[in-house]
């Protein structure tokens, strides 16, 4: 039993390091308007992982979105699964992939931090602090 627990603990510790998140920030819009979250998700492991969703305690909903061009129009589509190959980095960046957050549960302010958890197909969860930026921000620097 103890051995199983230990093995489980060790495996979860290893798994926690498989995926890391950096350059994480959200663009806050006024009122209850949806915010876009951006970051780099790095798969440090030697096998592919699949991102399947996100959750954010400060917001009611968090959804993986992508902006696409169709019939001369740009629109947002929900993305159910985003594979990240071994050693690869997935960029959530303005104009492309983003996490749509809406509506906020509490009033956030620039320079604060808000937690977002990324969910993976294998059950892995990675939580990272996202820096809150104003409407005019273009990156998390």
């Amino acid at each position, binding site marked *: 039993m103890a051995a199983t627990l230990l093995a489980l603990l060790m495996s979860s510790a290893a798994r926690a390091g498989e995926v890391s998140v950096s350059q994480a920030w959200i*663009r806050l*819009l006024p009122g209850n308007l949806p915010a876009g979250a951006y970051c780099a998700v790095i798969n440090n492991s030697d096998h592919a992982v699949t991102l399947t969703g996100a959750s954010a305690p400060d917001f009611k909903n968090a959804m993986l*979105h992508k902006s696409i061009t169709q019939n001369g*129009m*740009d629109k*947002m589509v929900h993305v159910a699964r985003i594979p990240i190959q071994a050693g690869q980095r997935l960029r959530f960046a303005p*104009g492309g992939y983003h996490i749509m957050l809406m509506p906020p549960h509490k009033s956030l302010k620039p320079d604060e931090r808000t937690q977002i958890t990324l969910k993976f197909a294998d059950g892995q969860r990675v939580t990272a602090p996202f820096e809150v930026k104003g409407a005019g921000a273009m990156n998390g620097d």
Partner: protein
Amino acid sequence: MAIKYRRAARYERWTVAAILAFGVLVLTGCFSKPHHFNRVDVSHGHEPALKLPGEPNASNQTVSARSLRGRWVILYFGYTHCPNICPTTLAKLNLALHKLKPEQAGNVRVIFVSVDPKRDTLKELVQYTHAFNPHFVALRPDPKTLPQFASHYHVHYSYGQRDAAGNYSVGHSSEFMIFGPDGHTRLMGTYQDSVEEIASDLQYLVQRQD
């Protein structure tokens, strides 16, 4: 004779040098080289001239094409519930304007037109637009006049299905249009352009008209 010959030879050398220099200048394009814009140059096409429906804007003044004559205008259609493309475009336009001299930037008006006037109240639209730049103008067309207004600029939009909470997304043309002080279209760009590219085009255009 010898002197004359040397003079003639020197003269020839100078002529050859001058011709070569001229050739180099032509080859390197120093003469009448058309300016290469980063954005799409639409000034010679059949793009529509600036025409606004005369709706009240941010400060409850009517914004009209006539009141904007003499200024550079950047027109962009979008909606406030857009978390990605619209804020990215407005953020880039704001950053590009900040790369211009203040007097140049002051001669450029950015107008954000809602393609979702049923959901975007004028108050929300103003709050949203001013979050990027207090000089940006919010325009909320009447839902009845929006189709005609948008089609004048070949702007397309379509509303997505409502979710359980009543939220919906709006697909829309994402180009912004740059109009000259005479109200004619000059350039078209998108959120995919870099801040530097937008700024250098604006700088070139605005400078020429100073």
